């Protein structure tokens, strides 16, 4: 009895060993509980009773959170793969243009800049041809004048003209 009292005191002090607590619980579960300890019997019975409380049912939400059926997933994966490949091509194509130019591409380099728009390139080319034409025209103007002078200053022609004029005067005097 003293032993039970000691263990009980230790129990309430929180210093009882796990083995002592086990013995105490067994004692209060038995039919040999002394009258002086009867008042503590419901305490240990309450612990046992609380241990019987069970959780409500939890249903795993399979449909909501889990993966799609196999066939659906397969289709989805295929579609995603195609989309990924197309996206890759779209991403890589401009890179290819930047690094190398194929013979079929319409590309004009202006001040080191590649222009692939045909209209822009045409406008720029026309402008450049006009400028070149003007340069050529203004550059050849003195040469044309010199040629004209050269033609006018032809000695044979001058002598021919002069001999014709002399002959004309001679015939007039006779």
């Amino acid at each position: 009895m003293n032993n039970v009292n000691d263990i009980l005191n230790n129990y309430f002090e929180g210093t009882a060993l796990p083995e002592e607590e086990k013995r105490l619980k067994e004692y209060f579960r038995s039919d040999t509980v002394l009258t002086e300890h009867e008042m503590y019997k419901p305490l240990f019975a309450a612990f046992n009773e609380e241990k019987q409380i069970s959780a409500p049912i939890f249903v795993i939400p399979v449909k909501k959170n889990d993966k799609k059926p196999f066939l659906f997933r397969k289709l989805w994966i295929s579609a995603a793969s195609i989309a990924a490949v197309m996206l890759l091509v779209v991403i890589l194509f401009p890179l290819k243009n930047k690094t190398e130019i194929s013979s079929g591409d319409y590309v004009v380099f202006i001040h080191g800049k590649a222009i692939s728009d045909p209209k822009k390139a045409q406008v720029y080319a026309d402008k450049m041809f006009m400028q070149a034409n003007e340069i050529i025209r203004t550059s050849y103007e003195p040469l044309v004048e010199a040629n004209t002078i050269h033609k006018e200053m032809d000695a044979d022609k001058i002598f021919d003209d002069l001999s014709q004029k002399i002959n004309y005067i001679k015939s007039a005097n006779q």
Partner: protein
Amino acid sequence: MKKSTIDVRISPVSRLLCMNAQQFQHQVLCYSDKLYRMALSVLKDDSLSQDAYQELMMRLWEKRSQLKMIENRQAYLLTSMRNLCLDMLRKQQPNGVLPLNAASTVPDPHQLTEEADMVNNISRMIDLLPEMQRTIIRMKDVEEMEMTEIAKIMSLTENAVTANLSRARKKIREMILTHQQQEKMLYEQRK
């Protein structure tokens, strides 16, 4: 109370998920009862405890891939449940502060005798203890957990757990003794 089995329904279409559901059952749902009892101990309300339990389970199910990495799963789950319940208690308060613990008064002897169920009254007495004390006493005496694990769940030292456990048990003893004296007085008055 009758113990119920855990119901895990898996549709035949999702057979591939069986492993996940089974793992979840083995790793988490095996602690269901302890978790629910923890919720009851903190919240002291069946309906709220059921909500807390379902909420925690949903969260755990959604993050089930991360659960594999947790070493002490029981401590993690019980800590999560306690924190969730404390959050719920805070949200119930207009100022968002955790409610003060009820005074540890002994239930009215008239009421007790009417109920005529001392075992249930002990549970009510435990519910009168401060949240920390009642959670500790239940983890120790109902769940029969080790002091080290209780300390881990409660984020306390083992000495602090022992002190709280001692206080809780002493208060319960006082309540039992007071209740017995009141019963005696009632008995004598009736005579």
